[in-house]
């Protein structure tokens, strides 16, 4: 069977896989956002420098 062939299970589980994919992408974005905010909160100099630039 060629690797590219779509099995029925791929279409059937598309919604579930898409949901999990979007959740993981959202989680990564949230952790990234939190990291940026935390770094700025911990070191206000970074935030101030950004404003100066």
């Amino acid at each position: 069977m060629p690797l590219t062939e779509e099995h029925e299970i791929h279409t059937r589980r598309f919604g579930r896989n898409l949901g999990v994919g979007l959740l993981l992408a959202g989680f990564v974005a949230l952790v990234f956002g939190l990291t940026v905010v935390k770094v700025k909160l911990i070191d206000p100099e970074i935030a101030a420098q950004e404003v100066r630039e």
Partner: protein
Amino acid sequence: MTDATVLDHEKEAGFGDYVALLKPRVMSLVVFTALVGLLVAPVSVHPIVGFASILFIAIGAGASGALNMWYDADIDQVMNRTKSRPVPSGKVTAGEAFAIGITLSVMAVIMLALAANLLAAGLLAFTIFFYAVVYTMWLKRWTPQNIVIGGAAGAFPPMIGWAAATGDITLASCLMFALIFMWTPPHFWALALFMKEDYSNAGVPMLTVTHGRKSTRTHILVYTILLVPFALGLGMTSIGGPIYLVASLAMNLWFVKGAIDIQRREESTAEADGYKAEKGFFRFSLYYLFLHFGALLVEATLRGYGMGGW
């Protein structure tokens, strides 16, 4: 025939079934009360930190819901209200529900600690433990006071929201806890009065089953009266104000009146009119909680403009 074709496709879980495992309706109440707890706190929180905190509190609450569905699959199967849930309907296995519950619990607590602080994370961990272990595994099948003590799990979210913002526990956050804690028994007992077959069939020692319906009606009245000082007391704290107090007074008068009506009703009268008063009381109890927290939010918003509060 492949392995995949022997699966019952009708019963295969979709993404929505996994969401249902987290009890989204309960989650919405958790999100609302936790958000109010966070917003009325006298500390400003960065929007991303605030969003993340509420999200992880909600995920933690959802995870405890999944653990509840894992453990209670046998009870859920015989109750009309719960038999279409993902585990009893066969869409999600009990093992999957357990794995999702544990994984999301650990993830939510760790992430809340990183996003907010250790106190908020500790309170969330305790809430999950309290709901999944103390309430679900122990109290629910053992004592008719299950709702009273178990109500604490649902009462923690505003306290966690407050702790996420301020890093402390104060009288105001304790009173927000007390408001939900004292509200839970009359709310659920009213439900138990008109969902009577469900709890009897499942063998859950609900007050209506163990002490009878007349006693349950009296219990509703007693707990509704006990709720009043906590609801009004919250209005006297730093997060209260005249708008909250007036709204609270009006709602408490209405709520106590409803409880008196329920206490005075004969079972035959209730049955004849399809539990109209009980259903009305239950519906109003939802507005009662929503409006109390809504009024706190109004006070906090007005305080931002130099109005509101004391």
